[in-house]
Every structure is written in C-alpha cells, then in structure tokens.
C-alpha cells in the first residue's frame, strides 16, 4: 500500500506490480504510474496531449 500523490489516500497495489503500470486511486480517481516497485513509488500518470499532423 502507498499514498496517492494527488489526494494522499491509501492506494492498494497488487503483488506483481510492474514499473510503468498505470493504477487508479479509488478515492480521487487519479491515474497513477508506478515508477519504482521496491518500494512502490507512484507519480501522476502522463495526461493525454493533443498534437498536429501524423
């Protein structure tokens, strides 16, 4: 378990967590990215940006 970087609520993580995985904070709904697993470190997942062209 670790804290949501957005609201501070506890986020329950599963055992086979992988770096780069996106998990949800069930309290505030934020999408969080796992940037380390030992111990787990979460960051706000990148938001979808708009870009032009191909």
């Amino acid at each position, binding site marked *: 378990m670790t804290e949501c970087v957005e609201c501070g609520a506890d986020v329950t993580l599963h055992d086979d967590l992988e770096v780069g995985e*996106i998990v949800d904070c069930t309290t505030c709904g934020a999408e969080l990215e796992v*940037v380390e697993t030992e111990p787990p470190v979460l960051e706000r*997942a990148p*938001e*979808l*940006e*708009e*870009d*032009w062209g*191909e």
Partner: protein
Amino acid sequence: MTAAMDDTAEISSEDARELLVDLVSLPSPSGEESDAAQRLVEFFAANGREARIDEVGNVRAPADDSVLLTSHIDTVPGEIPVEVRPASGEDVEVGVADEEGEDVLWGRGSVDATGPLAAMAVAAARTGVSFVGVVGEETDSRGARHLVADRAEPGAVVNGEPSGTTGITLGYRGFLAGTYVATSESGHTSRPEPNAIQHATGWWNGVEDAFETDEYTPVFEGVTAKPVDIDGGISADGLSVEATLEVQLRIPPSLDAESVRETAEAGLEIGTVTWAEPIPPVMESPRTEVARAFRVAIRAEAGDPRLLRKTGTSDMNLYAADWDCPMVTYGPGNSELDHAPDERLSLSEFDRSVAVLTRVANTVVGDS
C-alpha cells in the same frame, strides 16, 4: 514466428547513423521508393537477416512477431540538400536540438518518416523482431493496406511517425475524402439564379456549419472539414457552368465515417458527392504492455514520457481497423517539421529513439 539467436545483430551508433543518412540521401517520394527499399534490404542482409521486397514494394523482414516495427519508406516531394550541420541557436530554441553545435541532419524525410524508419530498422535488427517498411503512406497507404490483407496479425505494432523521443502516440482521427460535382445551365451573370459554383460553395458552407464546435472542444474530438481543391467555370462547349470541389473530413473516435457522411450530405440539395473509402479513427489504451514498455524505456533513455493523440491520420488507423493487437506510434523528430522546407533531425535524438525502441522490443519479446 520466434526469433532465432542469429536474428539479433550488434549494430553500432555509427552504422545506425549511416543507414539514416543513406536513406535520407535517396529520394523516395511516393511511388519512387525502390532505391531506399533496396538499401533497407541490404542493411538487413548485412546484419544476417532475410529481407525481401513484396508485390507492392514494401520491405519485409519477418522474425520474432511478438512485436512488429513498421514505418513508411516514402516521403512527400521536395528536395532539401542533404547535409549534417551543427545545431544553431534557433535549432535549440524551437526544440530541434538540445545544444548548439550538435549534429543535425537536414533533408527531405529526415523527420517524416525516414528518421523513424531507420530507427525501427536498427532496433529490429538488434533485437530480432519483425520489421516492415511500407510504401505509399503519403498518398493512398497502399503499402499498409497490402500488409493487413497479406500478413498475419503480430503480437503488437509499433508504427513509425515523428513524435519526439518522449512522445507516445495513442490516437489518430479518421479520414474521409469526397468530391462534390455540380452543373448548371449557363446564363447571363446578371441573372439571380445560383450557378454550379454557388451550389458548391453553398453546400460546403453548410458542411462547415454542421461540424462547427465551440472553443472548448479539443480539435481531436471534433470533425475538421477542409476544402483542398476547387475547379469551376464555363464548360468547354459554353453551355453550362461546372464546379468540382475536393474535400477532406477528419473523423474523431466518437463518430464513424457513416455518420459523418450523413451529416455532410444532409444539406445537399443540388450536385453529387462521391466518397472515397474512409479510414476509421483509432484510440489505443495507455495501459497495454507495449505502452507500458515505452514509458519505462523513455524514462530510462530520454526523459519524461508524453501521451499524444494526433489530429491527423496515419497507417496506424489501418492497422487498428484490421488487427486487434495493441499498438502505438513512435519515432524521432519534431512533427511541426513534417513536409516543411526546413525538415531536419538531431542525430543525438535519433540515437535516443533507437535506444528506446531497442528497449521496448526486448521488453515485449521477453514478456511474450
């Protein structure tokens, strides 16, 4: 197909850059990709991989199909002298280079999409995964259309287009092209009845109004209606007025081509519209294994990952229409330089993109 040990090759950064410079030096506008295709075949042969040019001109280098790396060989027309120049202050200012003095490759296709193409080829040869260079992306996507009709679905697809070394493109709008044609009897221009040209512009004004969005709606989530060519006037025999209008509509993932077509035709009273085969929109999840692998690789090699949805259309739309596997689009280069007269790519950015793609391919192969 599973990669054999000898499907992987050691390729230096110098050799990778040489492939890039060679490919940019070989003009490859749509329909004239054969010289560049042959250079790719030679590159794979020199690295112990079988590669062939297929019926439509695509370069096919099958191997481990856990992930297919693919990009387009063709460029838009336009000659830009090929040379490596030291980055200027302006290059740094506009984000083409990190530092003044670093090597920047100028040339048509360096960004769209020979840079991504060369990076994919090098990463595929290093890791032993499948590679295809497709033809015709800038016109009718005949290479990608042939590929989905002729090839089994891979485990995942990484499509090559410029997104910078940190950008992961997950979505594109779809595409619908149409041709409006109207004819009216000729008459004195002092008469009040609208002629064919007025019918054409009247219809088009209605289409633009129908798809107008408020300022808060992201461009990606709306339909962009764009006239791209117009021709009209008195016919050769002098008896009628003719008008032809070529139009393009970009389709957001919330709509399909049929509903966009119905809306566009709702205000059509005079004239006819012929629609080309549509390309559906695509919006991939950021939670797939290949997207995860990209975030990890980008953090290790290039910086903070960005997730992108693009307002244009690419071959990924066609792959997503036929294949259910996860996919993303990635590649070095600033997409603002797509088709531009000052198209150029930092070679250190190219190196980083090769490193990212190599990590991704190794991760996906290892997990499959």
